[in-house]
């Protein structure tokens, strides 16, 4: 063996820096391979993806284990009452799609859906809509009277509709039509922006497109026809609700159509999902715009920003945590899974799930899967993104 020489401090430093740089250059670009799911694990054209099945098992258990449910809901409600409500909605919509993907599990899914819907209607009946709204809902008067939130009506309507798309149930159909769809349609027709308030003088595109999607479900299930209203809303939104800088739909506006919040990831991805059954071409255009301006990836890890690059804003309850420098938003990335699933963008979905597997702190136990970094609504949104498809497909096949 040759004689070894001691290195000068400068050479040691140089070697250390070079070694670390080379190691990082080799490892970091390959790191995503350790987390990237196989496409079959997260997406299935027919049947249910394995990851969705494991997540659904956990979500269903939450709703059958009262202590687990109480803990999950309490943790969310202390931060934001909306999350409790949306966790219910996204889970029911997921289970509806899952039931159509795998009819063998329809029985247990229907029982879980009914449990969630009944409990939600009971809470709304006893506490009013404010039980699921943030505090500022009572800070100023609502413009349309009597006061109602289309956030609550729209999501409940879609819950009822999706449930009945799996198997009709008369009391839910009555609730869907008389107490939700008819009321929403009448109030939208009376509004100068063809939209209703989610919060006082705040109409969110998220909630209004959800309501319109629920009307599409109603048209499929019941003898109703909201195609004219839907067409007029789309025309109005193209003319009045497009952000000139980005081309995307704004997030919120006053009842008379003045912009309040510009496009945000936590809104636009869900809007794209709903537009798929309202005006598919418009929906796809919005999806492509959102993807171009909000989606990104770094060394194989996909993510979505809450705001387009170059537009600075502050984190809020809608954006969730935003990673500095990258601008990656927890809420936008989660909802991007839904849009990617809706438009069959498996590659983007894979990139997003890769990041969720790295930074979402997944816990897999006893055939169940959930994420320690998320709450129940976060997991329900991801589950919806992994199961979405069959209900929308039935609507598109149904006409009107």
């Amino acid at each position, binding site marked *: 063996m040759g004689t070894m020489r*001691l*290195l000068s401090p400068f050479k040691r430093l140089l*070697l250390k820096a070079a070694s670390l740089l080379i*190691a990082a250059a080799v490892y970091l670009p390959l790191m995503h391979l350790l987390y990237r799911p196989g496409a079959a694990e997260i997406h299935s054209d027919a049947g249910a993806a394995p990851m969705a099945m494991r997540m659904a098992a956990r979500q269903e258990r939450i709703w059958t284990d009262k202590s687990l449910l109480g803990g999950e809901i309490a943790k969310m409600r202390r*931060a934001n009452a909306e999350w409790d409500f949306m966790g219910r909605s996204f889970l029911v919509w997921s289970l509806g799609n899952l039931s159509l993907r795998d009819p063998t599990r329809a029985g247990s899914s229907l029982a879980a859906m009914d449990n969630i819907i009944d409990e939600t209607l009971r809470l709304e009946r006893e506490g009013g809509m404010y039980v699921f709204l943030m505090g500022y809902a009572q800070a100023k008067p609502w413009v349309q009277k009597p006061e109602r939130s289309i956030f609550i009506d729209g999501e409940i309507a879609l819950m009822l509709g999706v449930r009945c798309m799996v198997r009709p149930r008369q009391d839910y159909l009555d609730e869907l039509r008389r107490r939700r769809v008819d009321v929403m349609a009448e109030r939208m027709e009376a509004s100068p922006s063809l939209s209703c308030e989610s919060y006082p003088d705040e109409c969110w595109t998220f909630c209004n497109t959800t309501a319109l999607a629920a009307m599409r479900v109603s048209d499929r299930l019941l003898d109703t026809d909201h195609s004219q209203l839907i067409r007029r809303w789309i025309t109005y939104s193209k003319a009045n609700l497009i952000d000139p800088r980005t081309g995307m739909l704004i997030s919120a506006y006053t009842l008379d159509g003045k912009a309040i919040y510009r496009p945000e990831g936590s809104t636009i991805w869900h809007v794209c999902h709903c537009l798929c059954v309202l005006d598919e071409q418009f929906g796809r255009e919005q999806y492509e715009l959102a993807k171009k301006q909000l989606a990104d990836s770094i060394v194989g890890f996909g993510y979505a920003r809450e705001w387009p690059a170059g537009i600075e804003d502050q984190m809020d309850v809608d954006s969730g945590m935003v990673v500095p420098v990258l601008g990656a938003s927890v809420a936008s990335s989660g909802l991007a899974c839904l849009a990617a699933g809706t438009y069959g963008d498996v590659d983007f979905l894979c990139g997003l799930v890769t990041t969720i597997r790295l930074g979402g702190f997944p816990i897999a136990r006893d055939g169940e899967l959930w994420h320690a970094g998320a709450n129940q609504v976060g997991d329900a949104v991801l589950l919806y993104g992994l199961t979405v498809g069959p209900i929308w497909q039935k609507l598109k096949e149904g006409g009107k």
Partner: protein
Amino acid sequence: MTEPSKPSQPAPAESPRKKRRLGPPARMLIGAAFISAAYFIFHLLGWRQHVSAAYATSAGTNAALLMGAAYAVSYFATVFMGPVLVLAAGIYAVLARMFFNAGSTD
């Protein structure tokens, strides 16, 4: 008379301190081990369940926030820096031999 030759002096022993000095590759490996150890300890303590408090996806106590943040930091340090340090240790040893013909304690 010739002066009896003095027994040759034994070479001074290397100081134990110098013998124990570790080279950069070993220090990198120890760094990786420390980072991973912290993560595994937090994991065994069950702090993973508190990450949602650190992510602000659920409301939690200050203690939960701290535990969640410590867990998340140690996890990301382990998955990002651990493998880089291990690889860098090997690369350092190879480069030192290739370019400077130096030992691994350098």
